[in-house]
């Protein structure tokens, strides 16, 4: 079974600071994708970034980047120059071939950006 661990239930930083959210997962697959989603107070789920496991280069999307450590099964999200609008729950979601029909999320990290 695929398990996902987000060890930081809550985090809080000041606006413009950089923050890193951690995620570890368990899979026996070699090829898979990893996603980070955010859920702002509106509760609408939004894709933040995705990473392909066979690519060594870490994905970036503007202020969002990941640190993917395949051997360690770690997939952390870094938010640079944080903004008030980044306040949200963040969920990590690895996606493997074996579990292809499912979409399983971690328990989430509640991130608060303070003015």
């Amino acid at each position, binding site marked *: 079974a695929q398990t996902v661990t*987000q060890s930081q239930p809550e985090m809080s930083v000041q606006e413009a600071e950089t923050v890193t959210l951690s995620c570890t997962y368990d899979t026996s697959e070699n090829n898979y994708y990893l996603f980070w989603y955010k859920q702002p107070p509106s*509760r609408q*789920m939004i*894709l933040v970034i995705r990473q*392909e496991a066979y690519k060594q280069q870490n994905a970036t999307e503007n202020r969002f980047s990941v640190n993917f450590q395949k051997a360690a099964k770690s997939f952390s999200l870094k938010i640079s120059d944080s903004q008030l609008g980044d306040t949200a729950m963040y969920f990590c979601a690895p996606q493997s071939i074996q579990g*292809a*029909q*499912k979409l399983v999320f971690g*328990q989430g990290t509640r991130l608060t950006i303070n003015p």
Partner: protein
Amino acid sequence: SQTIHQWPATLVQPVGSPLSLECTVEGTSNPNLYWYRQAAGRGLQLLFYSVGIGQISSEVPQNLSASRPQDRQFILSSKKLLLSDSGFYLCAWRERGRIMNTEAFFGQGTRLTVV
């Protein structure tokens, strides 16, 4: 473009009453469909997923059931609600053909309160 509709947005039901939440997707065919429940401030628990009409996989044994009477319609039901069924319910879809690398798209959610 594809859209997902989920209703109602808010629901207050007495214990022991039936439940029916509906989710429909437009602009795509043969989607994978998902129902999640989110307790207050917590992660997303996968309840059911479906890869086709009439095909339902249950992740968590509980007081709920799901059905897919049409390709783009996914219904979450209960014959008798329990207090523990309260929560935020999210419907999601994803393209069937490219499971691994495609993101999931979520409805706006239903906040269910059982009283």
